[in-house]
């Protein structure tokens, strides 16, 4: 009897402990999630809010008059059609090129033995810690007067090479050679991932006479989908949100971040000098614009998050 009592007591204590542990975790998760999601909710709520609702004291989060009227001026001023296409095109191209180049380079570092391999790997990581500010001016000049050993000047007969600024070429070149935004990180992710694939996979291919590149394409890449998805997502999102490189290489062309930056003030200027616009209305416009900018990567994330969330350890971010 006494023994039974004790077991019951312990069981009860465990239950109580579990309950409070769960409650504690729940509260913390709710709190942090609120801080993360609050901007998204407020964007969603204000973007569809009629200007009338701003002055309605009973409206805070859920608008009384759902409307799409905010989108019209915002999309016109941001030239959403063109800027969206430009941003999407650039991000997709860059992400695809970076997945290809970084997996290629990462495979070389993961599987082959040659002199200087460890040095190269160390240098890959070193590229990450050099602030891009340091090389931004020479890079700007490099693409402004682009030339390969004077060959282009020789062909065109003009001095100073070609001007590659305001085109996608600088981005593609940076991406193809593993020098784009945080590419050292992607190479690292791929290297760690490939190192975890059993060697027997490739040995079978080699025995059948496949070359290294064919093996990489046919055997390794199909097994590296989780890593590719993670790198693609990172690469797409960071290119989408990037202002740094696009601010240097695309000074004339407009991408979404720059369009959003100047949108509110443009609308204000268009309204005329004597009209002082309500800051709340400007905020309405800004939130609508912000939703238009973060919307596409957000959708992409919602589709891809299960790969992202469930296969972190398998993707070998940590060796």
């Amino acid at each position: 009897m006494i023994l039974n009592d004790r077991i019951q007591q312990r069981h009860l204590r465990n239950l109580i402990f579990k309950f409070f542990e769960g409650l504690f975790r729940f509260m913390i998760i709710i709190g942090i999630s609120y801080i993360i999601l609050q901007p998204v909710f407020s964007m969603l709520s204000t973007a569809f809010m009629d200007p009338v609702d701003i002055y309605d004291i009973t409206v805070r989060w859920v608008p009384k008059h759902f409307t799409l009227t905010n989108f019209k001026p915002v999309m016109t001023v941001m030239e959403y059609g063109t800027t969206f296409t430009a941003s999407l095109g650039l991000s997709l191209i860059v992400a695809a090129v970076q997945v290809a180049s970084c997996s290629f380079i990462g495979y070389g570092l993961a599987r082959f033995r040659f002199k200087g391999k460890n040095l190269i790997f160390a240098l890959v990581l070193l590229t990450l810690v050099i602030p891009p500010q340091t090389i931004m001016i020479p890079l700007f000049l490099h693409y402004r007067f682009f030339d390969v050993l004077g060959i282009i000047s020789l062909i065109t007969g003009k001095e100073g090479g070609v001007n590659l600024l305001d085109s996608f070429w600088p981005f593609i070149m940076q991406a193809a050679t593993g020098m784009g935004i945080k590419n050292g990180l992607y190479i690292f992710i791929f290297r760690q991932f490939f190192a975890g694939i059993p060697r027997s996979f490739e040995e079978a291919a080699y025995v059948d006479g496949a070359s290294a590149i064919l093996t990489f394409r046919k055997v390794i890449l199909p097994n590296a989908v989780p890593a590719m998805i993670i790198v693609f997502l990172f690469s797409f999102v960071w290119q989408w949100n990037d202002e740094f490189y696009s601010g240097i290489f695309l000074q004339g062309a407009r991408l979404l971040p720059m369009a959003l930056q100047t949108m509110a003030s443009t609308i204000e200027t268009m309204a005329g000098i004597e009209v002082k616009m309500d800051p709340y209305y400007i905020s309405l416009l800004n939130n609508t614009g912000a939703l238009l900018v973060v919307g596409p990567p957000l959708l992409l994330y919602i589709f891809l998050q299960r790969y992202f969330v469930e296969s972190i350890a398998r993707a070998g971010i940590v060796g």
Partner: protein
Amino acid sequence: MRNKMTLSERRGLAGWIFVFPWLLGFTFLLIVPFIQSMMISMSRIHITRGGYTLEKVGFGNYVDMFTSDPEYVPSLIEAMVNMTANVPVILIFSIFAAALLNRKFPGRTLTRAVFFLPVILASGVVLRIQSQDKMQEMMQMALSASELNSQQLTSYNLQALLRSYEINEFLVEYIIDAVSRIKEIISASGVQILVFLAALESIPASYYEAASMEGATGWESFWKITFPMLVPIFLANAVYTIIDSFTAFNNPIMELVKTTAFGRSSYGLGSAMAWGYFASIAAVLFLLFLLWGRKIEYYDY
């Protein structure tokens, strides 16, 4: 005749083929610009029709930026202080969040998806717009009971509480500052949480089983197993946090270099500023490795 190379030599050559694109990029898009940047920082640049010419001025730009530029020194100090202040808070927060997400509980997948969301939302423009947004302010006010600035009120309470425990004044200020910037800190910790979580998941469960067989409590196994195994990851995350601050939307050096170089066309001065920044970062990283790198033991797991 053709195949005089041994198999391993041929394999090695294939390795070079794979890293060749990177070598190209590293040489022409990093090392060369890096050296050029150093040269530009010591010159005055003249843009001509067919390119540009450099006029040597020695350390003139460096002297200028420290003595006559009104913004550089404050900006540099601000950037470095922000960075150093953020690293410990972000590390502590992200290890905490990772430990939370590593436990099994209902709704874990959804919670993880939410916690990594800041990586997606980290758009500089959007963050900038939100930080000065009127509607958001209003919504936050609506949530507080009093229409007074509620955030400061709670901070006061926390401050009083911490003081009553006689905690070091500097630490109190630091904690208060961290709490008031909680949003910024959470939105900067996405990748770090991911990395910690991946590391936590890769610790074999058998270690914990062995420990609990020997009678270790959860607290003990955290400090004796989890923590030691995560030390190298701490360093990696600290470095990542520093890297992440280079292109952060509120990095004052970034704006300054851009306006100096491209706005005022003083490429030389801009380069010198970037080099000053790079030198400070390098010093911080060097210190970090000196203090920390030696103590790390790497485990095979």
